[in-house]
């Protein structure tokens, strides 16, 4: 047994339950999803839209149950990565590890671009020229701001992202209610987009709805820094999917009943309020844009926090450079991992934007790659659950059935989606495949330097000698 934790350096007991929950919720960016996704799912799912959101909420709750089996048993810093290693061993673990890295990184990239685009749109109303150079400059600003907050301390960044996420959800809910129940929506007079002929894309709609929940497991990456982590992290991971399911079903119900003009134009993949509604809707649009901006910014912080902890763990293991596994002496945050990640998180979407031309295309591309990472990791962690419990001798019937059934269902949905989708996302699949292969390449290279690397992966905040009460002398002070 070690005398110091392999992930020492990160400060313990920093986050309350609300902040741990905030980490999970902000990594999902639910308010951006609330106003975006139903508009994409409704055409594909038609009258099954509500059912799609309910079913995916239950499916993600099942994934949450599986992740919870690990969260009650180990204090992780790299979430699904260390969980999968403990269940299925190093090789599937590495796949899960790079999958979550891809998932978090691409989500952070998309959010940075989203935040920069909405900031540009808001500034555009003040007369600042809108365009790619503006967006690029604002993306740098967003990245730098988020980096400063995250290095300064997890408590500060968690508090800020929780606050702005609550604001964003409140705004999104209010705007949806006003836009789809009040007179504003009627003015547009657009026909309902849901046509009976599009029901064949139900599988794709399910997969799309799944991607609206991804990120909820990221509380697992801040367990070391949470107060009472066995309780708070597990609770956050179990309840987030259900709470999100309620929000999404509400948002879908509001939008399915009203008029929806789906994402048009260069900037928003978010519903555009009908222009003919007059000044009322302009004010509403501004509030809406502020809300979405807040949500994207919270998502930059949420995703990058999760990404940096995962990279930090990989650095400690030696899977990547050991320098990344260093923590700041004063602020006790993984500052090297953060400083390494943020330039990529800003540069990739900006470069992509200059190549592709439209923010919408970049956002969809990045989110598609990100979704591949998340779904891959979810699949592995569901399979890892019964294997892990069996290995430690604590397997019971429920986790066995839930783990296997969830994995089978997810595979079925992926296959169904691949068969029914009109415009397949093969490019994203290929990018994901190449990145995973590159990850394996890096692992093979590092393995030559560190021969026992396969045994070193999967670090977590394990029990140290000072925590074990054997040979205990009551008459002395332990440090």
């Amino acid at each position: 047994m070690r005398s110091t934790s392999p992930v020492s350096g990160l400060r313990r007991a920093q986050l309350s339950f609300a902040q741990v929950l905030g980490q999970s919720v902000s990594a999902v960016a639910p308010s951006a999803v609330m106003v975006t996704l139903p508009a994409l799912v409704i055409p594909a799912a038609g009258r099954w839209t509500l059912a799609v959101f309910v079913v995916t909420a239950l499916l993600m709750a099942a994934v949450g149950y599986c992740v919870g089996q690990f969260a009650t048993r180990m204090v992780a810093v790299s979430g699904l990565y260390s969980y999968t290693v403990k269940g299925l061993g190093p090789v599937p673990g590495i796949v899960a590890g790079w999958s979550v890295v891809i998932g978090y990184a691409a989500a952070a990239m998309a959010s940075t671009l989203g935040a920069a685009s909405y900031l540009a749109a808001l500034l555009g109303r003040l007369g600042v020229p809108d365009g790619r150079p503006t967006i690029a400059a604002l993306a740098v600003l967003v990245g730098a701001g988020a980096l400063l907050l995250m290095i300064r301390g997890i408590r500060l960044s968690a508090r800020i992202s929780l606050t702005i996420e609550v604001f964003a959800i409140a705004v999104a809910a209010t705007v949806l209610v006003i836009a789809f129940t009040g007179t504003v929506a009627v003015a547009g007079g657009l026909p309902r987009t849901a046509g009976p002929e599009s029901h064949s894309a139900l599988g794709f709609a399910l997969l799309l709805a799944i991607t609206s929940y991804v990120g909820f497991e990221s509380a697992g990456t801040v367990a070391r820094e949470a107060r009472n982590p066995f309780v708070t992290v597990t609770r956050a991971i179990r309840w987030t999917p259900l709470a999100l399911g309620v929000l999404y079903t509400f948002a879908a119900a509001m939008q399915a009943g009203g008029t929806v003009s789906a994402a048009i134009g260069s900037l928003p993949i978010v519903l555009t309020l009908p222009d003919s509604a007059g000044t009322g809707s302009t004010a509403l649009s501004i509030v809406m844009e502020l809300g979405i901006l807040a949500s994207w910014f919270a998502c930059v912080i949420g995703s990058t926090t999760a990404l940096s902890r995962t990279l930090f763990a990989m650095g400690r293991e030696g899977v990547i450079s050991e320098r990344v596994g260093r923590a700041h002496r004063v602020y006790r945050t993984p500052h090297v991992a953060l400083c390494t990640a943020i330039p990529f998180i800003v540069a990739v979407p900006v470069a992509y934007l200059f190549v592709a031309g439209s923010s919408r295309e970049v956002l969809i591309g990045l989110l598609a790659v990100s979704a591949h990472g998340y779904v891959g990791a979810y699949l592995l962690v569901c399979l890892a659950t019964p294997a892990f419990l069996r290995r430690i001798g604590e397997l019971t019937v429920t986790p066995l059935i839930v783990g296997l059934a969830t994995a089978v269902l997810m595979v079925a949905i992926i296959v169904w989606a691949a068969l029914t989708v009109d415009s397949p996302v093969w490019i994203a699949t290929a990018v994901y495949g190449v990145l995973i292969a590159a990850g394996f390449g890096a692992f093979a290279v590092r393995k030559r330097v560190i021969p026992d690397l396969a045994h070193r992966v999967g670090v977590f905040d394990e029990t140290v000698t000072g925590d074990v009460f054997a040979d205990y002398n009551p008459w002395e002070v332990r440090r």
Partner: protein
Amino acid sequence: MTPADGSLSGRQPKAVQSALQVLEEVARAGVGVTAKEIAEHLSMPSATTYRLLNLLVADGYVVRLPDLSGFSLGPRMGVLIDAAVSPMVCTAARDVLADLRLSVRFGVHLFYLTNTAVRIADADSEYPPPADESVLNRHLHACGVGKLLLAEKRDANELLTLPLGALTPRTVTSRAALASELDVVRDQGVATQISELREGSACIAVPVRGPSGALVAALAMSGRDDQADLLARQVPTLREYAVRLSPLLA
């Protein structure tokens, strides 16, 4: 740990009894016992045992070993163990204390320190200490001995109930001020209180360390607050006696 669970009204005696049985079994079986073994020994349904173990782990009464399958007693058990032991002072140490008491006109007290608390081992009967043991332990930040204990801890907040309670207007209640005071205590190896614990009292305390350097006890002197300067002059004497006590206590 979770006072929010207000629905629990002590009406699940079976669950509480089972949890305590599991705890007892972990203690009896020793380091590394697995969940399955515990369930077998207690003839308890395995799902129930695993759930109870996870609850005990979450609250720190039990810890999971790094292999994730074995269990052992955890840090929260220390509080129970510490409360059950009673301090015993050997005759030789009592003689040393009597020696010191003859030479000064202050109260001379010996405290033992556990991992989480201070315990009065030998108090001066002529000049009693300014507060009793339970007051000291609830206000470790207000007494000299308590400050020695806090300064020894890597994370002093573990032992403090926040917000810091004030016994007198001079009690240090700001966490930042306390942290900087504890730095000084750590640095100089002596802790004081002047009218922080009780109006008009003053104390000074030095650590008694075992051969490995572990803090095992504290030697303290108490007087009136206007005698604080005189008390401060006693530090070399106290240190000398602490060195004499060390081999007798650890």
